[in-house]
């Protein structure tokens, strides 16, 4: 019996004839496509972008609105605050002039305070996120790829960092960091406080990402495409940067999307413990904390920063989920 012989296959013709269903889409583009279909994701992205725009354009917004976050309106203009320092008008002194009311005590404009506060908190959180992520990437990849002693020591370092009672440590040693930069009787610049906060937040955050990436690198290293690169003589640097790193962007992106809101709230929590940004720099976390102290007299002052923070954190977490889903469709369905 003979079997009919179809045409030979080593010509490109047969394959070219096949109608392509997907046209040259990179994994990134695919992710974007999936993401675009996720309504929650889009909405939260819009919200998040809105917050970033607010932070970025704070001076413009304040200029358009015509108020200054540092001016003590309630104190300079009589009739805004009562004897106890609370706004006289109902709802925290909301009026056409002060959209979100005025701050009890100092009598500043809540709207500009909030806008600038978001700016401060976001800048700190973003900076800390970027630095922590960068350190995490370097440590994780070095540990995972180099292996051996390097891996052992970085691994121990990660363990130790993760074992530190971080909150306690930050409140205990914030002054140390500041001390490293200024003598005790020197003026402490505002940026220094910010830098200190960033350092404090960063020190304990890189380790988680590093540990995750180390694991990822360990498994990626076993993937055959890394061997394929080695066989062609690729240098370790090339393997790390050209082969491994592009495959790590997914966990990195997901992790940092989750890290950022965590840091925003962490900064607020530090404010609660008295080690946040200091007056007169407007600060979201501090506003929130103050709100929790005076809400019985002026709930409005808690509501605006509080709800803004809640919306931001929820939106960012939702965004994180959507990014994860977009990258990893397996979870969905």
């Amino acid at each position, binding site marked *: 019996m003979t079997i009919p012989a179809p045409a030979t296959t080593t010509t490109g013709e047969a394959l070219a004839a096949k109608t392509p269903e997907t046209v040259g889409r990179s994994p990134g583009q695919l992710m974007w496509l999936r993401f675009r279909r996720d309504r929650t994701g889009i909405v939260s992205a819009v919200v998040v972008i809105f917050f970033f725009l607010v932070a970025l354009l704070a001076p413009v917004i304040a200029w358009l609105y015509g108020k200054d976050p540092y001016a003590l309106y309630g*104190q300079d203009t009589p009739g805004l605050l*009562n004897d*106890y320092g609370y706004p006289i008008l109902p709802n925290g002194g909301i009026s056409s002039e002060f959209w979100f009311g005025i701050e009890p*005590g100092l009598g500043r404009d809540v709207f500009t305070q909030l806008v600038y506060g978001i700016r401060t908190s976001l800048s700190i959180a973003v900076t800390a996120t970027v630095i922590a992520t960068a350190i995490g990437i370097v440590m994780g990849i070095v540990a995972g790829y180099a292996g051996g002693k390097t891996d052992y020591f970085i691994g121990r370092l990660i363990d130790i960092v993760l074992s530190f009672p971080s909150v306690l440590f930050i409140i205990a040693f914030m002054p140390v960091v500041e001390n490293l930069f200024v003598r005790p*009787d020197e003026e402490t610049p505002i940026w220094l406080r910010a830098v200190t906060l960033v350092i404090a937040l960063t020190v304990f955050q890189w380790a988680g990402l590093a540990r995750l990436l180390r694991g990822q690198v360990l498994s990626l290293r076993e993937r055959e495409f890394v061997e394929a690169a080695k066989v062609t003589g690729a240098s370790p640097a090339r393997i790390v940067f050209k082969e491994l790193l592009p495959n790590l962007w997914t966990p990195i992106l997901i992790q940092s999307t989750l890290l950022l809101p965590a840091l925003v709230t962490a900064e607020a929590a530090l404010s609660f413990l008295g080690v946040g940004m200091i*007056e007169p720099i407007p600060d979201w976390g501090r506003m929130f904390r103050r709100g929790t*102290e005076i809400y019985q007299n002026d709930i409005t002052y808690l509501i605006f920063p509080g709800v803004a923070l809640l919306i931001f954190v929820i939106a960012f977490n939702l965004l994180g989920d959507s990014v994860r889903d977009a990258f990893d469709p397996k979870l969905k369905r």
Partner: protein
Amino acid sequence: QGNQGAPAAPSGSASGEPGAPAPAASYKPPTITVGTADDSKGPAIEPEGVVKGGTVTMIDRDDIGHLDPAQVYVNTMSNFGLLIGRTLTGYKRVGPGDYKLVGDLATDSGTSSEGGKTWTFTLKDGVKWEDGTPITSEDVKWSMERTFAAFVTQGPTYIQQWLTDVDYKKAYQGPYDGKRLDSIETPDDKTIVYKFKSPHADANYAFAMGGYGIVPKEKDTKEAYDKKPVSSGPYIIKSHVVDKSMDLERNPNWDPATDPIRGAYPDKWRLEFGQENLQITDRLMADAGADQTAFTFYATVPPERLQQVLGDASLAPRLMKSPSPYGNYYYFNLDRVKDVKIRQAINHAWPSKQIQQVYGGPAAAALPTTILNENTTVGYESYDLFGKETKPEGDVEKAKQLLAESSNPTPTIVYAYNQTPLQEQITVVIKNALEKAGIKVVAKPLDRKTYYDSIGKVKNDFDLYWGGWGADWPSGTTVLPVIFGPIADGAPNYSHLKDEAITKEMDEITALTDIDAQNKAWMALDKKIQETITPLVVAENRIANTLHGSKVGGAEIDPQSWVVSPNTIFVKQ
């Protein structure tokens, strides 16, 4: 009660921060006079409606730091000390705002001779330690001698200095190595004689300080005494969990008939520590269950709750009010701010009213104008050099005018402040006001732990900083010579004021044996210093508003120590 607690408390604590006179009109400064031997007899005068028995609860933020009287200087600790220990003299409450200095262990408030160089006290009959052994003059002498010992670092130092030398620890190192102090004599078990190097007409006030409480010679355990003191007062410590709680029960060997000061009405005391002011206020406002029999020594209503508490008529019967007896100042560093015109300009531009608002308004802070405090100065007289009463929000024009006359019309002032949320806000206000007058303010936050260290350095780089000082007894003697005394690292002369004429005048006034003349002279010097040198801005003084539970009676803020006195407390049934 001078030392107002080292680390300033985070927010609105009583022991830590400002306080002072001249509040709402209803307030009348207390009168303090010297009582007779009759006044010194027990028992204490009962407050209205008193009931004996029951358990009272006291809630505060901090534990009683020291139980060894030799280590007690802070008002809260001396106040607690009333419950478990006695002193030679003490303040007896005769009626609201009316106090007398009387003998506590002593039969009267002491007899002086040689114009106040020698002071003699006789102990009452029937005063005993908790184990029933009688308290002797040897015990009293021992108690004073041991305050010279090296481990004692915290208590008052007046009498030690008077007995020996200014550098008293060099002159004598305490009784533990067998050496005794000759300047204290005990001719018999009941009599004790103090011989000072110079006259001190008001020494009997000094003996009322908690730091001069007594310790039994036979039961003295040196450092360890701080943990387990022996009671001579109405109560014994039954249990003490550091920073958390303490339980007191009656001392069977305390005889009310010997004690004109302490009422000791409740059978038991329960002290809870570690609660923040806000929580304590919320608990007392809610007045639920066991909290009905609770009160607090010093947790004042914080600014965040003030409007609510003062606005609620139902809370009024449970609210106590008292302005701070302390002096609070923004000291100029005279080494740096050399031009008196600039100092006066700042005084004129000072936003007292705005700061008051941050504290919670007139109900929470008064705006004094003098260095000496109205409440703790016998013979107080007011003056207003910088228009604080007429323009409490600051007089920018006047300030500008003075600046124009000064060496530098646009000065830069480095303002150092204790970095607490409240002080941060006040700094914003100060900066805002001074900058309107053309004074640039560089705000330098200081860590609260090191605040006093930093401003206490003679060579500091700040121009203006807050500091408090309180009279140890109602006389200028314990204020002006201290805050304008020797200049040294850590010494309370934060202005670094060094003016020979003033120093000389202070020495002369101190040496006066006529107390009334002395008081008058202090008041005059007060004004003179502000007028000619202006070494400070008189700061706002806070008014304590303190709640207590609905079943607590006799609660009253002691106007001198500015904490709720345990002497009159009772539990309503």
